[in-house]
C-alpha cells in the first residue's frame, strides 16, 4: 500500500511537471550539485554495488545516490499478488542513516559471531542466537556470562527485521537499539561500551573495517552506535521469506503437502483464530496481547512476568507480550516468552483448551481471541504440518571460521 501511494504521487508529480523535467533531463551536464551518479529522471540504472550472494543492490532514494543490499522479497514493488495469500511485507523500521552496505553487513556478521563483545570475552550474539539453533539457543531462558540464567527466552533473529518493536516487551524501537541491550546487560554479555570500544581499537582489522564501513579514520568510527548499526545491517539479511507457504501463496498449489494445506485452513479458521494474531505475511503482529502463559516453575499458576505491562501505566497490558513470527517456528523451540512449551504439540493443546482461562487463571485482560476450540488429533497434526511449512533457512549465513579478535567462534549455546 505504502509503495503504491508513493509511486502514484511521484508519477503524478512527473506528469504535472512533465515537459519541464524532461527539458532539464537533457541537460545532464547542468546538474553540478547532483554529486555522483546523477541519472536523468525516467532512466533507471542498477546501482553498481557488489552485494553478498543472494542480495540485490537497490537504490535507497529516488535521486539515486545511495544504494544498499537487500534480500529480494517474493512480491516486488508494484507486482500484482498471484493469490490473496500473497501480501507485501511491511516496511522495516530503519533509523536515519541506516544503510545496508556490503561493508556494514560483513562487519556486522563478524561482530555477531565475535565473543569480544562480552565482558569476559566468552559470549557472542551467536551464543544465544546461533544459526544452528534457529537463531535462538533452543533453551527456555538464555544463559549469559558466568553461567547466569536470563529472564526470558532468546527470540529468533529470523525476520526480526520486520518487527515494529524488538524484545518480548517491545522496549526497543529498532534492531540498532536492541543490539545495545544484551551487550551491556550484566546477565547476558556484561560488557562496558567504553571498554569494548577500546578493545576493538586494538584490533587492526576492526579499525579498518569500521573506517571503511562508516567513513572514519584511524578507528574513529568505532562507536557503540556503529557497532549496533553493523549488527543490524547483518540482521536485516536474516529473512525467511521463501517458505513452502510462500510458494503456495504465489500460486504453486503443489508447494505444500495436503496436510499443510488442510493445516492452513485450520490456521485461518474462525474456530482456532490463529490468523487473527499471526497474520500474513509476517505471521507476527505489532500489537501486544495477553494469552495467559503458565509459569515454568509452577504450571498451575500464571507466569508472573508482566511483559509489556511493566513498561506502561495502567493494568490493560499486564502479562502482555509481543506476538512473535511463526516463520521458522519449527526450528525455535521451546515456545513462549519463558520457553514453557517444549513442542508445537504442547502449544496447540494450550490454545485449544482456551489459553490462560482454560487453565483456570484469573485474567480480566486476556485477549478476546483466546477461546477454547475443538482440535481433533488429525487436525493438530495438520496444523503442525502447516507450521512446518513456514520453514526457510536458505539464507543461513556462513559462520565465519575466524573472527578479528581471534577468539573462538561459538559452535552453539554456552554449556
Amino acid at each position, binding site marked *: 500500500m505504502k509503495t503504491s501511494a508513493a509511486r502514484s504521487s511521484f508519477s503524478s508529480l512527473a506528469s504535472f511537471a512533465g515537459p519541464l523535467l524532461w527539458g532539464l533531463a537533457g541537460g545532464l551536464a547542468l546538474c553540478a550539485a547532483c554529486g555522483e551518479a546523477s541519472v536523468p529522471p525516467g532512466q533507471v540504472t542498477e546501482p553498481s554495488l557488489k552485494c553478498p550472494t543472494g542480495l540485490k543492490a537497490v537504490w535507497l532514494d529516488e535521486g539515486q545516490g545511495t544504494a544498499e543490499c537487500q534480500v529480494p522479497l517474493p512480491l516486488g514493488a508494484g507486482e500484482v499478488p498471484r*493469490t*490473496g*495469500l500473497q*501480501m507485501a511485507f511491511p516496511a522495516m523500521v530503519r533509523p536515519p542513516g541506516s544503510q545496508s552496505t556490503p561493508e556494514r553487513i560483513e562487519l556486522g556478521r563478524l561482530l555477531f559471531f565475535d565473543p569480544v563483545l562480552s565482558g569476559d570475552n566468552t559470549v557472542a550474539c551467536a551464543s544465544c542466537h546461533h544459526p544452528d539453533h534457529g537463531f535462538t539457543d533452543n533453551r527456555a531462558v538464555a544463559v549469559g556470562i558466568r553461567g547466569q540464567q536470563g529472564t526470558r527466552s532468546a527470540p529468533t533473529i529470523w525476520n526480526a527485521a520486520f518487527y515494529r518493536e524488538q524484545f518480548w516487551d517491545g522496549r526497543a524501537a529498532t534492531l540498532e537499539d536492541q543490539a545495545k541491550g544484551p551487550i551491556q546487560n550484566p546477565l547476558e554479555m556484561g560488557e562496558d561500551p567504553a571498554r569494548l570500544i577500546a578493545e576493538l581499537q586494538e584490533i587492526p582489522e576492526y579499525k579498518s573495517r569500521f573506517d571503511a564501513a562508516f567513513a572514519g579514520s584511524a578507528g574513529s568510527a568505532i562507536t557503540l552506535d556503529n557497532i549496533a548499526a553493523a549488527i543490524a545491517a547483518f540482521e536485516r539479511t536474516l529473512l525467511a521469506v521463501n517458505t513452502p507457504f510462500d510458494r503456495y*501463496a504465489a*500460486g504453486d*498449489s503443489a508447494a505444500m503437502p495436503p496436510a499443510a494445506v488442510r493445516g*492452513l*485452513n*485450520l490456521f*485461518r*479458521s*474462525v*474456530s*482456532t483464530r490463529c*490468523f*487473527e494474531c499471526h*497474520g*500474513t505475511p509476517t505471521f507476527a503482529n505489532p*500489537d*501486544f*496481547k495477553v494469552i495467559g502463559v503458565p509459569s515454568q516453575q509452577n504450571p498451575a499458576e500464571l507466569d508472573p512476568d508482566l511483559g509489556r505491562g511493566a513498561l*506502561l*501505566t*495502567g*493494568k*490493560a*497490558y499486564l502479562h502482555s507480550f509481543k506476538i512473535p513470527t511463526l516463520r521458522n517456528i519449527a526450528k525455535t523451540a521451546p515456545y513462549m516468552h519463558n520457553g514453557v512449551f517444549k513442542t508445537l504439540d504442547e502449544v496447540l493443546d494450550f490454545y485449544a483448551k*482456551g489459553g490462560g*482461562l*482454560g487453565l483456570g487463571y484469573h485474567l*480480566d*485482560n486476556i*485477549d*478476546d481471541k*483466546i*477461546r*477454547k*476450540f*475443538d482440535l*481433533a488429533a488429525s487436525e493438530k497434526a495438520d496444523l503442525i504440518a502447516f507450521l512446518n511449512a513456514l520453514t526457510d533457512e536458505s539464507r543461513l549465513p556462513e559462520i565465519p571460521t575466524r573472527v578479528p579478535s581471534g577468539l573462538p567462534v561459538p559452535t552453539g549455546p554456552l554449556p
Partner: protein
Amino acid sequence: MWCRLLPRAFALVLLTSGCDSSPQPNVVVHSGESIQAALALMPPAADSWIVKVEAGVYNETVSVDRSGITLLGEVKGDGPADRAVLDGTVEAGRLLKDAVIVSGANFTMQGFTVRNYSGNGVTTSKTRNIVLRDIIADRSGRYGVYPVESEDILVENCVATGISDAGIYVGQSRRAVVRGCKVYGNVAGIEIENTVDALVENNEAWDNTSGLLAFVLPNNPSKVGNNCTMRNNNVHDNNRVNWGDPTAIVSKIPAGIGVAVMAADTTVIENNRITGNRSVGVAVIGLAQLLPDPTGIDVEPDPDGTVLRKNTYQGNGKDPDPGLKGAGFNGGGDILWDGHGKLNCIDEPQGDDLAKVGVAGALPACK
C-alpha cells in the same frame, strides 16, 4: 430484466438484489461433487471464474485464494433442500470448522445455506470487493459471515440464526453495507467492529440477546471505528438469554438490548423501529463498561458524536436483565447513556415520553 454480475465493481455500487438471469458459469458442480475441486480448475491466467453449484449438500471447507471467483448456488425454491448447502457435519459429534475461507479479491457468493460448522460460515480476510448475497447461515458456529480486515463489502439479503457470537459480523474493515438481512436467535445479531464507513439498513433483528451493535475493541488491527449508520431496521424483542461462550466478550452482554453503541464514533441511529427489547432500546456506552481499567489502551474508549434520530420506540425496558443493575443502572428504558463521550445527541419525536436510563436525560438535542 437482465442482470449482469459485476464482481469487480465496488460493493456500494451494486444496488440490485436478486438477478433474474446469471451469466454463463465456467463450471457446474453437481450434488456429490466437490466445490473446491471446481475452483482448482481455474486456469492460472484467468481473472474471473464462475462456479455454479447445484442444489444439494456439500460437506467441505472451501478456500478461495484466487481473485475474481463467483460461487452461484442454485435456488430452486424456498425449502432447505432446494438450495446448495455447505454442511460441516463429517461424522457423529464432529463438525468442520468453517464453510468458506476467502483471501481472494472480487469475490461473490450467493444463494447458499451454510450450516453445522463449529467456527464460522463465510470468512474474508485482508481482501476487497466482497459480495455475500442470499446466504442463510444456520448454526454455522460462532459467526455466520465474518469479513475482517477487508474493504468494500456488501452483505445483502442474508439470514443468520442459531449463532453463538454474531450472526453477521464486519470487523476491522472499511466501507461495508449490511442490508435486507434477517438475524434471529443469535447472541449478537449484527456486529460492526472497529470499522469505518458502514451502513446497516433495512434489516430485521429479533430474538437475539442483542440486536445491532457498533463498537470498538482494543488491540486490533484497526484502532478506530466510526461512521456507522444504522437506519430503517426493525429491531424487536431481542430478549434471548445470553448463551454465548462464557470465555468470550459477547457473553457479557445483558439480554434485551436492541441497539448497542460502545466506543464507536459518529454512529447514526435513525428511522429504526426499536420495540419490545426488555432491557434497553438503544444503549450508548464507553469501554469502561467492559474493561476494568482502560488506561493506556490503544483505542479511544468513549462513544462520540452518536446521533439518535427519528426512531420509533415501544415496549422497551419492561423487564431488565439483572446484568443492567450489576452494571450500575437502576432500571430499563428506551435510551441508556453511561455519560461517556462527547457530542452525542438526540432528536427523537417521542421526546420526553421516552424512558431514559443512566444519564440519557442529559443528552442534548441534535443541532
